[in-house]
Each structure stands twice: as structure tokens, then as C-alpha cells.
């Protein structure tokens, strides 16, 4: 084997967003050595972009809230395809995880009596999101980062993992490269936690940054782990649409939580036109009641703008398709109208939504305190991910754990806003805890030098090819294809067409070439990320073909209704012995009586 810079850690964590950092803190607290690998610099991960807040039933604002309500909201939002045990643990443990952040220095907005303030969000029955204006993700990642750097954790910044290494069926390390010099690095570990986030870069219009190429999903899949729920990709209803350079950038749901309304070009509040039966009892039937809800009236029901993201996104698409959209192909989101209700509305908006104010002012020349925003759906989040054990977050491959967006199970067919940050904390902690436990119970494994050499060789191939295609065009074509054929509205024949395109794209990716040398070469990095993007894109397309119904974030134009036959299983994907993608239906786990009862009571 060639000589590689080698690092040994008891627990290796891949990813340094909320889940990765929380896992690292927990693992190091358990007394094992911890290494964290991150594709970007520390503190830049996508968690930073989270705006709205962390969902936790602290009951600081409405004392009727408790874990049971949060649990049943999460299950309803996920159309009951969630793993009930994960939803239960999440609802029970989220409040402690939030309070812990405060003990580590986070400064949330406060209630009148000095406790953590909570805000309304789509699909949550009571005001539940602990927040800091609209920059909650920044507060969370900075708190974890600043706490974590004093815990003896080794950080390997700007390092990308190419492959996981196995010994006797168990994961014992990972192999990758550092961006700065392009040198390979070998990591030997007793347990590995994937916390790599999502797959948003597979789509053209996305709120995700360059990093989100499905690395963890793909690494796990190729290491033999199972992926689940991959057909469920969340298109956030409100992304910026104009100017073109900002298309896809997120506009927080907090705008609607603070009273923002959606209108079409006729000025109609179209969300009142279509309220799903599952939510009829919980939704206001007139604008006045909706407004009172956003202002904390406990007897009012929430406005239809705060229905779940899948539903709101589809309503927006309907308005645009039927010719009632805004000039640049979106609809209007208006918070400025609250000046009819509040005396100093402009100041109030700036205080509650400072970064939205800033973002629109600076990037779109729009003053959101005076005029409506133009918004449309943007690829935001993948509910699907590595199939894990609810308690431990371990995948079907021993020693391999996954937490946060790259794990699956908590959100089912659709994630509620605010449940992501709490997911990162609750299951990041659990992954760290059980990875450390696994590391203590197992010795170091052996990494296979041939496997490592092969990975290194294959990574360098793009430099050796002469004058073939550059990676950016392939990535762009993939994104465009996924957007058009595997997007918000799906059809059988288009999905099959997508598979054909993927085969062709894979062929092109196999011949990609990059100029220059290995030092900080984004062309090379993009070429290497293509493999992961292709893997996850195929998983999404295949699962989308198999689910012949519409449920949650998955909408089939050819099967527009929910079908009970499809409510009883999750779709699980695994690499077959022949190297092809295998798909199977995994029956939902039996829900314990007490949880069934909670769901019944909360209906």
C-alpha cells in the first residue's frame, strides 16, 4: 500500500453540522477519542441556514403542549410512515436537548417571564419552536462548535470522504482527501457516524449548498447499508424566485408563522381553497381567526398557510400552473399587510425576521415591510436516508451509524418545519452515545490496503483522462433532469425516462476529466461528488416509481390520491450482489397500543 497520512480515532464522525457536532460532543463525553471530518470549514455546514427554530414541547408559551402532542403532530405530518419509536424518542427528548444548548451558551429569544420563547410553525399544534429571530441554525451550530472545540475532539476541516472501509462485515474506517492539498487521508476507527446532511444538489432549484451531494447516503449504500423512504424529497414551499441568481434560496416558514399570507396574482388567499381532511379541524376557516392564531390567541386555529410543507408547495404549484402566479413564476408571500393590524409593523418585522429583511433588501431590492415577496418551491430536504435502529442509530452494517438528515425514519413522508434541528440534536446525541459504546466494546479492525489503493486510484482517474468532458456540465444536466422528471409532480413514464438519463449520465461521469493539479481544485471535487449524486438520484427515482400513490412530499400525477395499500410499508433500497439497486417493501413496525391511543386522542 502507498503511504497515506493516517489518523486513528475510536469514533469517526463524518459531517460537522448539528448532528455531527452533537454526536462528537456526546462521544467525547463518553471518554473515547473522536475525530470529525467536515467538507467545509467548521461552522459553515447547512445547519447555519436553518432559520425558523427547534421544535420541542417546552410548553413555555402554551402549557397545553407536551411530548404526546408533538409526537402526534410529527406522525400526522409524516402521513404515518414515520418510525413511531423514533418519533416518540424525538418528542420526549427534544426539550432536554434544547435546554442543554442554553447551558452551553445559546441565547434564545425570551418570553415575558424570561424563559425560552416559542413560535408557531406549520403542522405544529401549539407554538413550539425555540428560536433566535430567524437565525436559529447559526445560534445552534455556533453553540455546538464553541462547546465542542474545548472537548479534545480532532477536527479535520475541508476533508471529503470517498469510501468507507470494512473488515469482516463491520465498518472500521474511511478514506478520503483534504481539499487544500489534495492529499489522501486514511481514517481508522472502531465506529463511524454519518452526519452528512442531504441530497439537495441533485436538483436545479435548491436551498442546499454545493456540499449536499448525498455523500452519507451513497457511502452507506455502497458499504451495504439500507436506504429508506428515498421517494420523499421535501420541496420547501417558499424559496426566492427572483432575481435568477438567488432562485432557490430559502425564505423561512417563520414569515408565515408571524402572520405572512400567500396570495396569487388576483390577490386571492388561495390556501383557504384546499384544506386537507386530516387538518380540517385544526385549521382556521377565515382570515381573522388565522391572524388571531399567529398573535397567540389560544382559542384560534392556525391559518392554512401553516399547513404542512408538502401541501403548501403543491397548492403553490397549482396556482402557477393554472396561470395565477406572479410575474417571475412564483406566488406572493406578504408579511407587509400586517401594518393594517399592528401600529409599528415595520419595526416588528425587522425584529422578528431580520435576516429575511436583509436578504430581500440586499439581493432583490425588495423591502418586505412594504411589499410582498415573490416565492416558489425549492428543493430543501430529504426525508429518506440510511435505515437505522431507532434507539442507537446504527445501520444494518455493524459499526456504521447515521444521524440527522442522512438518517431516515423520524419524518416519514413529510417533515414538519422545526423538526429537523431537534432531530439533529436528539439523534446526533444518540448516535454519539451508541457509537462510543460500540467503540468501547470492539477492538480496532483492519483496513484493507488494496481497497484503499483502489479508492485512491479511482479518485485520480479524472486527471489522467485527456480532453474528455468537464464535470460541471454533467452536474448541471443531472440537476436539470432531476428537476424536470423527478421533481414535485411525478409521472411513471417520466420516472422511467429519468432512469435512462441516469444511465447515460453515469457513462459520461465515468469519462469525466479535470485539468490542473490536486491542490484545491473544485473541478476535481465536483467530479468526485458526481458518483454520490448519481447514486442518490437513482434511489429517489426508483422509489418514486414503486410508490404508485400520492402521499406527503411524493406526488404522482398519475396516482393523485392516497392509497391505503401503500400506507403499510416503507420502501427500502439496498445494493444487490450484482451491484444493482434492489428495492423492497418493508412492513411498518407494529405501533405499541399506548402510541396508537395518543394518535387517536389527538385526532
Amino acid at each position: 500500500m502507498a503511504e497515506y497520512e493516517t489518523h486513528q480515532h475510536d469514533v469517526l464522525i463524518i459531517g460537522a453540522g448539528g448532528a455531527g457536532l452533537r454526536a462528537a460532543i456526546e462521544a467525547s463525553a463518553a471518554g473515547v477519542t473522536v475525530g470529525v471530518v467536515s467538507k467545509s470549514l467548521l461552522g459553515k455546514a447547512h445547519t447555519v441556514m436553518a432559520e425558523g427554530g427547534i421544535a420541542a414541547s417546552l410548553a413555555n408559551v402554551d402549557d397545553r403542549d407536551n411530548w404526546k402532542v408533538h409526537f402526534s403532530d410529527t406522525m400526522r405530518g409524516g402521513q404515518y410512515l414515520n418510525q413511531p419509536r423514533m418519533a416518540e424518542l424525538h418528542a420526549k427528548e427534544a426539550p432536554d436537548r434544547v435546554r442543554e444548548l442554553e447551558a452551553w451558551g445559546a441565547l434564545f429569544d425570551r418570553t415575558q417571564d424570561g424563559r425560552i420563547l416559542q413560535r408557531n410553525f406549520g403542522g405544529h399544534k401549539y407554538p413550539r419552536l425555540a428560536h433566535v429571530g430567524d437565525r436559529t441554525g447559526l445560534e445552534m451550530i455556533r453553540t455546538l462548535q464553541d462547546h465542542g472545540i474545548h472537548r479534545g475532539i480532532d477536527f479535520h476541516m475541508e476533508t471529503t470522504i470517498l469510501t468507507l472501509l470494512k473488515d469482516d462485515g463491520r465498518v472500521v474506517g474511511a478514506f478520503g482527501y483534504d481539499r487544500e492539498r489534495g492529499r489522501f487521508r486514511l481514517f481508522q476507527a472502531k465506529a463511524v457516524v454519518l452526519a452528512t446532511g442531504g441530497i439537495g444538489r441533485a436538483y436545479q432549484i435548491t436551498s442546499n449548498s454545493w456540499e449536499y451531494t448525498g455523500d452519507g447516503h451513497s457511502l452507506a449504500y455502497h458499504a451495504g447499508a439500507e436506504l429508506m423512504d428515498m421517494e420523499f424529497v421535501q420541496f420547501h414551499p417558499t424559496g426566492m424566485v427572483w432575481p435568477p441568481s438567488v432562485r432557490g434560496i430559502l425564505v423561512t416558514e417563520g414569515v408565515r408563522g408571524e402572520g405572512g399570507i400567500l396570495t396569487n396574482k388576483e390577490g386571492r388567499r388561495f390556501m383557504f381553497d384546499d384544506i386537507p381532511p386530516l387538518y380540517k379541524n385544526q385549521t382556521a376557516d377565515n382570515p381573522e381567526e388565522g391572524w388571531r392564531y399567529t398573535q397567540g390567541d389560544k382559542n384560534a386555529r392556525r391559518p392554512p398557510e401553516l399547513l404542512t410543507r408538502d401541501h403548501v408547495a403543491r397548492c403553490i404549484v397549482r396556482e402557477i400552473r393554472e396561470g395565477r402566479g406572479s410575474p417571475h413564476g412564483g406566488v406572493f408571500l406578504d408579511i407587509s399587510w400586517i401594518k393594517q393590524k399592528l401600529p409599528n409593523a415595520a419595526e416588528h418585522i425587522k425584529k422578528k425576521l431580520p435576516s429575511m429583511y436583509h436578504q430581500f433588501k440586499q439581493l432583490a431590492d425588495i423591502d418586505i415591510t412594504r411589499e410582498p415577496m415573490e416565492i416558489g418551491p425549492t428543493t430543501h430536504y430529504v426525508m429518506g436516508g440510511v435505515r437505522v435502529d431507532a434507539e442507537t442509530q446504527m445501520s444494518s452494517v455493524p459499526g456504521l451509524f447515521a444521524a440527522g438528515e442522512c438518517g431516515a425514519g423520524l419524518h416519514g413522508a413529510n417533515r414538519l418545519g422545526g423538526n429537523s434541528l431537534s432531530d439533529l440534536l436528539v439523534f446526533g446525541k444518540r448516535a454519539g452515545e451508541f457509537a462510543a459504546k460500540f467503540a468501547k466494546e470492539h477492538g480496532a479492525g483492519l483496513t484493507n490496503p488494496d481497497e484503499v489503493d483502489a479508492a485512491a486510484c479511482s479518485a485520480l482517474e479524472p486527471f489522467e483522462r485527456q480532453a474528455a468532458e468537464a464535470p460541471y456540465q454533467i452536474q448541471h444536466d443531472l440537476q436539470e433532469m432531476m428537476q424536470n422528471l423527478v421533481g414535485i409532480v411525478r409521472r411513471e413514464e417520466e420516472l422511467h425516462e429519468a432512469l435512462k438519463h441516469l444511465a447515460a449520465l453515469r457513462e459520461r461521469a465515468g469519462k469525466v476529466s479535470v485539468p490542473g493539479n490536486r491542490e484545491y481544485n473544485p473541478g476535481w471535487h465536483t467530479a468526485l461528488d458526481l458518483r454520490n449524486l448519481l447514486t442518490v438520484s437513482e434511489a429517489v427515482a426508483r422509489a418514486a416509481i414503486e410508490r404508485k400513490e400520492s402521499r406527503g412530499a411524493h406526488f404522482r400525477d398519475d396516482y393523485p390520491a392516497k392509497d391505503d395499500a401503500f400506507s403499510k410499508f416503507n420502501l427500502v433500497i439496498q445494493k444487490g450482489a450484482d451491484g444493482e439497486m434492489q428495492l423492497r417493501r418493508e412492513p411498518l413496525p407494529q405501533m405499541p397500543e399506548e402510541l396508537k391511543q395518543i394518535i387517536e386522542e389527538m385526532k
Partner: protein
Amino acid sequence: MAKATFRIWRGDAKGGGFQDYESEVTAGMVVLDAVHEIQANQAPDLAVRWNCKAGKCGSCSAEINGMPKLMCMTRLNQLPLDKPVTVEPMHTFPRIKDLVTDVSWNFRVKTQIKPFKPRKPDAPDGTWRMAQQDVNRVQEFRKCIECFLCQDVCHVLREHHQYDQFIGPRFFVYAAALEMHPLDTEDRLTELRKAQGIGFCNITKCCTKVCPESITITDNAIIPLKERVVDDYYDPLTRLFKMFRPAAR
């Protein structure tokens, strides 16, 4: 469609120079869009850091027409396009490649600042009570996205290279956020005065001017810290008091 010339610094630690690229200009375009356009079509190995493209992560710091800015928040319609737009890496940090610099010094500095140490919880359930008005001023500091543009512009670092004796505006803001945190009980004044060199700051306010988050770095963070240091070390009454209680510090 209108075109503009971008004069981008290409090179590495050993050296380099400016190279001109043409790019089309579309509505609402920012400098980072142009850099990406050039990367995709003309210079695939052009090195640049970026993440969120919305001014929230602080990755794409550079000097645009000589001014420290985030590339993702600098609109082309705010720049004169009749002459080339220069884009170069931050000057204060060692160059790695093209627009990417080695900012690791900042991460090392942060570990030298004593971490948050809260007082005992206020309530039996282990929680605290804080009034919004008491957290407001610290929330301003916690808006920091660690783009390090304030470090880049600060002459103590940029011109005088006092990396070993001065932590720079970013970390005064960080220290101020800890010192003014309503729950914090740690004392960081000795280090601020000695190893961290707060005295080197002569309040030119360049850091405040370049902060993309509009944090009032000098007035709200650095000056109050300077005052605390002065109160603690140079106030005649305190000194007199300390003469009789030398153990106090």
C-alpha cells in the same frame, strides 16, 4: 446581454497574478455568480470557498475592488462595470490557492478564549430566567457569521502582523458576547489585556465598516471591553484596594 470583465487573482502560496475573464451579466447577479460562471466555463480549477450563497455562512470572503466583502452579497449593479472588477483573496491570511486563504489561525485563536461558564440554574428544573432586554446586546454579537472580514481589514493584523499578540475584532466580539452573557461567570479580562492585546486596537472602526452583519464591533464590543479592562487595572481606587488585597488578582 451586457458583459463585464473580472480581474481575478490566480496563484498559490508561491505567487501569482491577476487574470482577466469575461462573463455575461444577468439581472440580480452577484460577484459569486460570476466566479461560478467562470469556473464552469473557463477555469474549472479556479479555487473559491462558498456555501450558503445567502450571506449566512461567511465562507466567500474576498476583496472586491479592494474592499473586503462577501462575494455572495455583492451585487454587480452596485459596481462600476465599465472597468474590470478585481477579485482577490483576503490579504491578511496566507494564500492557499486563487481566492482561498488559510484562515486556520482564527480557529486556533478561538480555543484560547475561556469558554462559557454559566451560573447555577435559577429554577429547580435546571433552567434560567433572562429578560429579552438583557440578551439583546449579546444577540447582536452572536449574529457573527465568522467571515473574518473584520480580521482581514484590521491593520494590527493586516499591516503589522501581530498574530501572536492580538486576537482581532472577531474574537473581541466573541469575548464580549461571553463577558456580557447574562449567565456567564468567567473572567477573561487578564487575557484580554495581556495575551490577547486589546490595547493594540486604536478604534479606527474599519472592522465595523466591513461587517456584513452590521455588528457595531468597535462601539458595542471593543470599547466596552476596553473600559472593563481599564476599570479593573488602571482605576486608582481599585488599585489602592488591590494593594491591600493582592490576592484579588
